[in-house]
């Protein structure tokens, strides 16, 4: 091991498989046979879009993020195309990038922008998600469906849940019926049941990964590895069976690394969490921190599985059960199948951005769960859903003994107002004030 | 016996290979139209027998006869048929029917049986109504357009024209195609007015060349075909940007046997219709049997 390195490190095997799956997703967007729609059918904790023979649904998050990550000049041109049409500095970067491409009419390699044919909702507390589908339909006429991310404060309220649940089921039921009617593709209920099983299995693996990552020192993987995995099967749609196999492979490799003390960062001395990725073109700041031995454990955004763990008064962590019906539930009609997918609770049990409404201090539990020493909370100028409570969360984390730092920027899909050099200076000040020094290589 | 020009010959067939006594499920479909009535009988999903008769004076009587002719001398009787679906204008006269079905879905299902699963546009050219149906790849109707209220320009009209012009209904179609170019269609398809206008076309009057007999038939066939295009076209997307694809087109009903009409519709829709060995008039009855 190189000098100053405490644990053994090793390249990740699942890395190539992840790249291959993402490439498959990119091709599916440009495919001609498939009917491409904007949105994400993740509202029912599984992906019913795959139950249609030739349908692909894309949310503009991954599209906008990849544009920013891969081709900043094209992303900047796209954002200008959005700005001159009235989307100024207040619009989420992903939205500005993706739909800027639509206004330009071509993607980065010059080929025509793949037009969307319909819009399904991606229910999310973030307003930009709620409004995003409108843009495709304002640009040209296409069918659009809407639904809601159901929200109320406090504990589970059975009375408020009943009409909310009917609303949730109706919105999905209507999308499936109308897509079948309008695009002439038959919805396959059997396939849909298989998808539910696959969705459940994938979620189990992601919970295990989150647990291993959080509770093992040194952590077997860091957030930058998680980022090449975390959307597969969710925002980035790939073949369901491949999704389950991939997540199993990732869980196995991480478990093996944890058992054999293979570390993501050789001289891990400081574990820190974040609220949100940096601007996607500037992932290298993780490596800069790793020079100090500071490994990033990720965020409630990247480690979805961790959100199911809740801290008990004695400091231990309890895994809350899933929001599903019994397995032997009768499934005679399409409505039954979708009702089972919708789960028992209309309101989501918790997780990224939902906590801003329901458990405003959940980030402390996330930090404790990940045995973090510090937190780096980006405060974005726009992207309302990603910035809502960062300052408040910082106060809760400091009360819990963590060292917290903020840095300013626009939003992960937009590099405007992010002074990269100044960010590195801030990181130096932060680390050195905690007594850490960069290891000389 | 006075020769009937405007009548399609009646026909029926019963399979001698299938033993209906061994069949687990016998279903029948009856299509009681305004001009003709059909029946189709299936044993375990296989076509056992069919009949295609003219509707005489009484619908009740034809409802009975159409089954008798379909079973032939196989000994099968109406009460032994488990399920009978009735459709068509006079479906209420089939007292024995266990289920009443609408014509559109019956003709669609029948066309799928006759022309195969690829058919997506079915045009039923009936005696009094004309139905244009668009289907999904699976058995579900996507869009329908039905001719205007009155029965002008339908099968009944052609039958009357054949009586008037003393030409058999089986030949008027071919003859109407045997012309150099289609002259302008007769200006109306309402039979009462078309009669005088058609007669007028034989007269050499005031700067108008008299038409040959075939050309007179052509003027009438084109007028009727043009009227049907008005209904079929209503299923077309509103703006020319998306011209609807008509490739898999199947004709059913009596006028499907009249090339003078079908060829002219195909020419205008730039498509060639699918063919089948079954008599297109049976589509309604076959569909009713399969859907019952």
């Amino acid at each position, binding site marked *: 091991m190189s000098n100053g390195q405490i644990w053994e490190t090793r390249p990740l095997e699942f890395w190539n498989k992840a790249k291959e799956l993402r490439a498959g997703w990119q091709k599916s967007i440009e495919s001609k046979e498939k009917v491409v729609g904007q949105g994400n059918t993740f509202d029912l904790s599984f992906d019913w879009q795959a139950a249609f023979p030739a349908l692909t649904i894309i949310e503009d998050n991954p599209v906008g993020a990849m544009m920013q990550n891969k081709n900043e000049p094209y992303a900047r041109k796209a954002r200008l195309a959005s700005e001159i049409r009235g989307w100024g500095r207040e619009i989420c970067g992903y939205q500005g990038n993706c739909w800027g491409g639509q206004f330009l009419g071509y993607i980065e390699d010059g080929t025509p922008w793949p037009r969307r044919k319909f819009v399904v909702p991606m229910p999310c507390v973030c307003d930009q998600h709620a409004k995003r589908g409108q843009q495709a339909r304002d640009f040209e006429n296409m069918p659009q469906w809407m639904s809601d991310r159901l929200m109320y404060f406090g504990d589970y309220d059975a009375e408020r849940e009943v009409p909310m649940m009917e609303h949730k089921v109706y919105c999905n039921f209507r999308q499936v019926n109308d897509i079948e009617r309008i695009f002439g593709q038959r919805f396959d209920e059997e396939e849909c049941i298989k998808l539910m099983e696959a969705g459940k299995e994938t979620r189990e693996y992601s919970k295990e990964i989150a647990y291993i990552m959080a509770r093992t020192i040194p952590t077997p993987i860091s957030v930058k590895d998680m980022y090449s995995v975390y959307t597969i099967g969710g925002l980035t749609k790939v073949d369901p069976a491949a999704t389950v196999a991939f997540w199993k492979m990732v869980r196995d490799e991480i478990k093996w690394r944890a058992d054999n003390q293979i570390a993501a960062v050789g001289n891990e001395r400081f574990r820190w969490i974040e609220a949100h990725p940096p601007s996607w073109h500037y992932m290298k700041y993780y490596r800069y921190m790793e020079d100090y031995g500071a490994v990033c454990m990720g965020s409630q955004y990247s480690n979805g599985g961790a959100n199911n763990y809740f801290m008990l008064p004695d400091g231990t962590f309890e895994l809350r059960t899933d929001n599903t019906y019994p397995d032997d539930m009768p499934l005679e*009609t399409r409505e*039954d199948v979708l*009702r089972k997918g919708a789960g028992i609770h209309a309101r989501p049990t918790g997780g990224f951005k939902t906590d801003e409404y329901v458990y405003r201090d959940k980030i402390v539990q996330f930090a404790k769960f990940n045995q973090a020493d510090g937190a780096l909370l980006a405060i974005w100028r726009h992207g309302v859903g990603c910035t809502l409570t960062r300052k408040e969360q910082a106060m809760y984390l400091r009360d819990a003994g963590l060292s917290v730092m903020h840095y300013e920027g626009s939003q992960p899909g937009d590099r405007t107002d992010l002074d990269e050099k100044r960010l590195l200076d801030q990181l130096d000040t932060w680390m050195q004030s905690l007594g850490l020094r960069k290891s000389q290589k | 016996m006075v020769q009937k020009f405007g009548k399609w010959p009646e026909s029926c067939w019963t399979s001698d290979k299938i033993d209906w006594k061994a069949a687990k499920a016998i279903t029948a479909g009856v299509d009681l139209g305004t001009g003709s009535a059909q029946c189709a009988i299936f044993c375990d999903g296989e076509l056992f027998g069919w009949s295609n008769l003219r509707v005489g004076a009484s619908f009740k009587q034809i409802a009975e006869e159409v089954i008798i002719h379909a079973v032939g001398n196989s000994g099968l009787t109406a009460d032994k048929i488990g399920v009978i679906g009735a459709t068509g204008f006079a479906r209420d006269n089939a007292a024995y029917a266990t289920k009443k079905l609408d014509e*559109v879905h019956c003709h669609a299902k029948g066309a799928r049986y006759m022309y195969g699963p690829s058919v997506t546009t079915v045009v039923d050219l009936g005696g009094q*109504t004309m139905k244009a149906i668009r289907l999904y790849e699976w058995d579900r109707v996507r*869009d329908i357009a039905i001719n205007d*209220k009155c029965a002008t320009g339908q099968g009944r009209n052609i039958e009357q024209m054949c009586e008037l012009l003393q030409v058999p209904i089986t030949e008027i179609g071919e003859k109407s195609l045997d012309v150099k170019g289609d002259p302008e269609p007769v200006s109306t398809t309402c039979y009462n007015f078309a009669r005088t206008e058609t007669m007028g076309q034989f007269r050499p009057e005031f700067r108008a060349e008299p038409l040959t007999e075939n050309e007179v038939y052509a003027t009438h066939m084109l007028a009727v075909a043009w009227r049907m295009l008005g209904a079929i076209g209503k299923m077309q997307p*509103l703006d020319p940007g998306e011209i609807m694809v008509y490739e898999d087109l199947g004709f059913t009903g009596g006028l499907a046997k009249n090339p003078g009409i079908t060829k002219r519709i195909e020419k205008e829709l730039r498509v060639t219709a699918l063919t089948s060995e079954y008599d297109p008039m049976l589509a309604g009855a076959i569909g009713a049997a399969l859907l019952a």
Partner: protein
Amino acid sequence: MDFKALVENRHEYAKAWKAKTGGKVLGWFEPYFPEEVAYAAGVLPVRVLAKHEPDDVSDKWIYASCYPVRDMVNQFLKGRYDYMDGLVNVEGCQWMYNAFEVAVNNKRKPDLFDHYFFLPDHTDAPTSKHVTRSELNVFKGKMEEWTGKKITDADLDKAIEVYNKNRLLLKQISELRRMEKPVIHGAEMMNIVLADQVMDKAEMNEILEKFIPELEAREPGKDRIRLMLIGSETFDTELEELVEALGGDVVVDELDNGTGYYWNNIIPQKDRLMAIGLKYLGRPKNPIKDNNWRRRPQHIFELAEDYNVDGALVVKQIYCHLHGTDNYAVWKILRERYIPYHFFERDMLLPVEDTTLRLESFMNMLKPGINHLAGWHKVFGED
């Protein structure tokens, strides 16, 4: 309450009203007629309805035109409307104008009052409201001259209040049809609106105020296919009854004399006539008044969405050229918003076999794609 009977005995009702009050009855043709001014003069405004019977007498005067217009003239010439003391028509459909003019030219009473009210087809210009106010003023003068009674602001206020209340009650009933399994179906609702157009509004308000609680106490009906009716004016409820017999329900209509008749109310202001004028200029547009940037297609879509319809019936009287010309825009909005629809033409006579074939096929076509939830209890047997 049998509203259909009220519509059918409208002649007897009007005669009884005349006997009881000694007032005059004023027949109107086009639905843009501002009845409030006539009501303020103590006159009973009554809509001239058509019914289907051979138009043997009117054929001499009118060629072509839609059938209701021919039948209105036929009934007028046969004396069915002798109890009407006056006729008024508003600028609108020309066939309707012709019915009014032929009736006036064949006065069955020497002193038959007639007036032609010019409400601009171009309803959206800033000057349109001044034209309407001026015409209202002229009409008010004519009413005063005809009835010999001065129309004061108080009379106008009272009339506005009665009519606003009437429209609100009708809308109250119509809102009940937005619920799943509504307690009132299309035929009964249309009969209520037709009765409303041929009766004294004050009397009708009392009836409706008694009727609404009864309605709200009713058990919800069966789960039916929810249809919307778009197209020419109707004079009877044969079509709605046939739809209900086949398992559907006309939950909302965009008819000129249906929802269009009671959709918006007069917002009182100091200048009463301007208030009345703005109401009629602002009501849902009928085809001749829907120009420039087209408000009718958008209104159709909003009704379809509010009442959660599964499909639309676009039904037009044969030879109704206004709704004929609007077909393009109506079909365009229905196709753009992916609302399935079936178009057909009708006459006053509704052939049952032919229409059943259409409606049954259309409803069977809709059934596989219906977005009606069976609901929680059906799936799990719990309540």
